[in-house]
């Protein structure tokens, strides 16, 4: 059967199980859009191509499948760069399809020509230019295979306009991926495995560092069995949140820069770290010279280049988290770490008392209260998509996730503007799920044009703007480390509720704590998108905190009474 390249692309995407494409048309991709119109694929028109990539990313993270973004050549393609880098840093399987000028004029600085494969080489897992219609089906199949195998990541396929227009024989069976053969590495020898078992069975103060890889691998059940068999307490990275139920007594919560001090202290006192699907990011370790000095380390990781990158480990088990954990669990002897777990509980000390949730209402509205109330009202079952900054850390601290893929956040790249478009993608992936956006007033203004996409697509998400009138996290750093010189952090914003109304979305503004819960309830009852502008305390800070480059043992603790005290230096 003869089809045009554009038709082959649409047919291939359909056969690969794609339902939605997030994109923006333009000259060099027009043949594909013409074919899209005749296909069963649903195209979501975004308002900026960065939004398309974040939507595809949010779709991928919520579903575990592959998100697809599409743009034209030149500026359409370059607008995708931030979203591609975001997906790369967080190992998210996104396939980006860009139009390119005709192969005859490649390299001639034609209108809207840009070397997008050159630009995205370091921020994609793989990218490729296609100049012939007959190569499209195979290339797309290869792109899907690469994006979601091993350690997932974004793949960009750049298709010249003449390849979209030309006709070729469409032969699906004959277009199976033909990737270069790879050496099958003997990932870890028996001695390494035995050494890990010995460490696991002899540790007195073990702690698991649970990362995103557990979710990516679909290892939640294997992980839980491993945890139970070994009675190991679990600390999570930001992206690891959800891999193990927050309400489990063995779950300590998030570690690192804004983890609870007692969690970080437990890591510092541990005699064994069991790192699973995490990469010892600097936000997790603090100063490497003082990091977990008395602990031996086991690293379970699919990406061999992560081994010994930041932290030297004693046993490296390179492989898929689920496979490795399933191999390890039967070898665990009955381990009783009750004393150690009790000791960690003692490390908590008065942290809970100092917690803002424990303090009486003083008339001010705190972000932590808002997020905690969203958690309670949604019974912890919503998919929460956050932006980057203070609200992101408060979300990680005060929204307790019991299920995987329910916290979607930009971790590695820390991309402001991620939340709103990523939430749209997540809603398409999980139409039945309740999706909440938790976003700051700064990040929201970066991609708020996607409100129009929400209206055009008639989707129902709830948007909570944690509005403190500052670029809050940067302001906090200025408060702590730059003598409160608030340069370029005070932020003028529009009236967000009125803005929402202008888009045709219901908007609310909340200034008092008593209004929080009723407004959340009423928003949840609505079948349409609701935006709530929470005017929270302006100069509130995220506690506790490890200053950048400081030791994990050296945390800036919560003030005794954050409602009356201001921050003090450590």
């Amino acid at each position, binding site marked *: 059967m003869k089809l045009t390249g554009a038709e082959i692309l649409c047919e291939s995407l359909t*056969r*690969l*199980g794609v339902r939605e494409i997030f994109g923006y048309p333009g000259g060099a991709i027009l043949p594909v859009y013409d074919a899209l119109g005749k296909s069963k694929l649903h195209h979501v028109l975004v308002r900026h191509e960065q939004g398309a990539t974040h939507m595809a990313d949010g779709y991928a993270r919520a579903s575990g499948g592959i998100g697809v973004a599409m743009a034209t050549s030149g500026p359409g393609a370059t607008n995708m760069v931030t979203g591609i880098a975001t997906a790369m840093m967080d190992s998210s399987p996104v396939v980006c399809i860009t139009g390119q000028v005709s192969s005859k004029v490649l390299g001639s600085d034609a209108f809207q020509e840009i070397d997008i*494969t*050159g630009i995205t*080489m*370091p921020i994609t*897992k*793989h990218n490729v230019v296609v100049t012939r219609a007959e190569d499209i089906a195979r290339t797309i*199949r290869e792109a*899907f*295979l*690469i994006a*979601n*195998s091993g*350690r997932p990541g974004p793949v960009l396929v750049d298709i010249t306009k003449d390849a979209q227009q030309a006709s070729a024989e469409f032969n*699906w069976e004959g277009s*199976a*991926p*033909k*990737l*270069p*053969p*790879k*050496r*099958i590495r003997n990932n870890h020898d028996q001695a390494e495995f035995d050494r890990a078992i010995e460490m696991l069975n002899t540790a007195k103060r073990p702690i698991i560092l649970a990362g995103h890889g557990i979710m990516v691998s679909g290892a939640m059940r294997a992980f839980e069995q491993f945890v139970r068999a070994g009675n190991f307490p679990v600390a999570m990275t930001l992206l690891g949140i959800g891999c193990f139920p927050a309400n489990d007594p063995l779950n300590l919560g998030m570690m690192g820069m804004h983890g609870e001090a007692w969690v970080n202290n437990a890591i510092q006192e541990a005699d064994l770290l069991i790192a699973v699907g995490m990469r010892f990011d600097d936000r997790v370790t603090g100063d490497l010279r003082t990091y977990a000095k008395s602990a031996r380390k086991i690293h379970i990781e699919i*990406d*061999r*280049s992560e*081994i*010994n*990158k930041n932290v030297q480990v004693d046993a490296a088990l390179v492989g898929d988290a689920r496979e490795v954990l399933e191999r390890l669990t039967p070898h665990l002897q009955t381990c009783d770490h009750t004393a150690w777990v009790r000791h960690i509980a003692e490390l908590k000390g008065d942290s809970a008392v100092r917690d803002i949730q424990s303090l009486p209402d003083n008339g001010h509205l705190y972000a932590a209260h808002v997020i905690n109330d969203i958690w309670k009202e949604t019974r912890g079952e919503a998919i929460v998509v956050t932006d980057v900054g203070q609200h992101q850390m408060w979300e990680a601290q005060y929204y307790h996730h019991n299920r995987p893929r329910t916290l979607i956040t930009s971790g590695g790249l820390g991309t402001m503007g991620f939340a709103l478009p990523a939430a749209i993608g997540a809603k398409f992936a999980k139409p039945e799920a309740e999706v909440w956006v938790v976003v700051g007033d700064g990040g929201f203004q970066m991609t708020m044009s996607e409100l129009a996409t929400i209206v055009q697509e008639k989707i129902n998400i709830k948007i909570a703007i944690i509005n403190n009138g500052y670029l809050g996290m940067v302001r906090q750093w200025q408060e702590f480390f730059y003598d409160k010189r608030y340069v370029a952090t005070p932020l003028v914003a529009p009236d967000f509720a009125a803005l929402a109304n202008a888009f045709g979305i219901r908007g609310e503004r909340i200034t008092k704590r008593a209004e929080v819960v009723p407004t959340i309830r009423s928003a949840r009852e609505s079948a349409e998108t609701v935006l709530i502008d929470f005017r929270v305390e302006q100069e509130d800070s995220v506690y506790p905190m490890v200053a950048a480059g400081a030791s994990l043992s050296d945390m800036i603790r919560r003030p005794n009474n954050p409602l009356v005290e201001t921050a003090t230096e450590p």
Partner: protein
Amino acid sequence: MQTLVAYVENKPGVLNRVSSLARRLAINIDSLTVGPTQNEEIARMTIVAHTDERGAHRLEASLEKLVDVLLAENISTRALLERDLALIKVSADQQNRPHLMELIKVFRARVVDVAPESLIIEVSGTVDKIDGLLEVLRPFGVLEMARTGRISMTRGGDLLQPPAPDPTNSELESTGLKAT
């Protein structure tokens, strides 16, 4: 200095991906040679990099993550044969020519071009040997020089071969990604 060998797909852009990766890891490449292998679809690279063992591990493991790289291996600690080839144009007049010829003989180099005022000397061997010849040629006046960079091969039965193509495409099966 660390030596890595990589087998890569012999197609446009692969050299760029490899060198771009080294740049991203802030590893300075001392020399990088590429040439075809007995299989024309596969090229072999020898990469000599200014880094330590840990950096070489990162480079090796990161290279293998590239789709177009079939295999990458740090062979620095293995028994190696290494060769570099240089063409050196040196100024030579009637008087010093006999002396030059003596030196060339000692280094087992050879003269491949003779002109009234200069000679081109071809020399191959280890980097040290070529550096040594260069040192003694300097006083005569080195006019121009081209070096290939190092190629390396492990000795004897220590084989480093590209992985064979997998006709079953087992990787596809293992990911569970199937066309619907």
